[in-house]
């Protein structure tokens, strides 16, 4: 139970850590000052949430590892984030499409996690959901602006949605640890969120004059630690300081 809960918390936290790092890459490189600040703001929210999760995970596992050790010192295969969040920024349409496809899920997920029997997870969810509703407003807005924009912006957003669609199904997969934690009334049964997710996503895509992809084959593996080639590069950036100067403090 202890190890399962630990793994369950990592499953939530790793998504936000890796997505936060991706957004952080835009710091000073955003397409405009406002979007640059927005992406780093969202990144900061995610990192804030992640700290609460990792602090709790460290307490649960109780083997002397700190929140920082858990965040910074695992190997690639020990990260259990979904493949969607590790996908590179490519262009701004890609960045916003990835954000949108995650935000819709994140909001549905936190809405359920609020009801968790676990007091700490419920408190983190109640805190985070307010922030994530702003994220979803922002990313949905950009999907609409680019989708229903010029011919070029429309094409770029369509390409991004088409390219990332294959990573959406994995959001609703369960690991063995997930199933145990769900049965305890602590975790969220993500399988039941799937219909609501695709309905919400399709509605916004349609409003944005974009086509809902008809893909039937989906990528998976992140939750088992089998990642796309992009995660290793991201981690070498994320972990650089701790690997090079072990135990250094800010």
């Amino acid at each position, binding site marked *: 139970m202890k190890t399962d809960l630990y793994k369950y918390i990592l499953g939530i936290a790793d998504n936000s850590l890796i997505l936060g790092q991706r957004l952080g890459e835009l710091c000073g490189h955003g397409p405009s000052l*406002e*979007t640059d*600040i*927005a992406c780093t*703001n*969202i990144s*900061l*929210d*995610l*990192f*804030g*949430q992640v*700290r*609460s999760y990792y602090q709790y995970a460290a307490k649960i596992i109780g083997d002397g590892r700190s929140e920082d050790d858990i965040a910074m010192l695992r190997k690639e295969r020990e990260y259990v984030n979904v493949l969607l969040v590790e996908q590179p920024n490519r262009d701004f349409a890609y960045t916003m499409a990835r954000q949108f496809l995650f935000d819709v899920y994140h909001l549905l997920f936190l809405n359920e996690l609020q009801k968790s029997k676990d*007091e*700490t997870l*419920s*408190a*983190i969810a*109640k*805190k*985070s959901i*307010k*922030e994530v509703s*702003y994220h979803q*407003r*922002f990313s949905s*807005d950009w999907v609409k602006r680019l989708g229903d924009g010029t011919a070029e912006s429309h094409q770029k957003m369509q390409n991004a949605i088409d390219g990332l669609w294959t990573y959406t199904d994995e959001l609703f997969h369960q690991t063995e640890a997930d199933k145990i934690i769900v049965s305890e009334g602590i975790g969220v049964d993500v399988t039941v969120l799937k219909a609501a997710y695709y309905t919400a996503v399709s509605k916004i895509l349609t409003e944005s004059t974009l086509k809902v992809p008809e893909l039937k084959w989906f990528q998976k593996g992140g939750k088992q630690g089998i990642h796309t080639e992009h995660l290793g590069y991201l981690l070498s950036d994320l972990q650089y300081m701790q690997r090079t100067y072990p135990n250094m403090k800010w």
Partner: protein
Amino acid sequence: MVVTEQHIDQKLFPVLEQVSDPEIPVLSIMEMGVVRTAVIENDIVKVQITPTYSGCPAMDVIGEDIQKALLDAGYQSEIELILSPAWTTDWITSKGRKALEEYGIAAPLDAEADKSVLLEGQKLVKCTNCNSINTRLVSQFGSTACKAQFQCNDCQEPFDYFKCL
């Protein structure tokens, strides 16, 4: 762990009121509503604070500032960060809202109005410079996580709006 009511020892009010929000220096942490508990137990002040946003980098500084202010007043203290109940802009006092406006940050509207302003482009946020409501949203995210950027269409003043949370 769940603290529903604010519980503050009256003796400590004057001390805590001196501590300001490091990112909005005109606002004290009391006006901001981030202090949920401050009680004296066995000569130690136990303080519980709650973050405005999860990633608020000001929380560590606020904790240290509280400890310093209490120490100057002769108290040892322990600071605990709590998440529940989640902070809401409703906890900013009326004095705090006024201080925000005077500082050039538009105070948060209620949740419904906030949504229509940030999503549907409705004109409800008052310019902090000329009081016109002919203002527009520049970005949903501003200089800190808690603010959005606005601009006045009449006097052209750019200003921050404190988002409803």
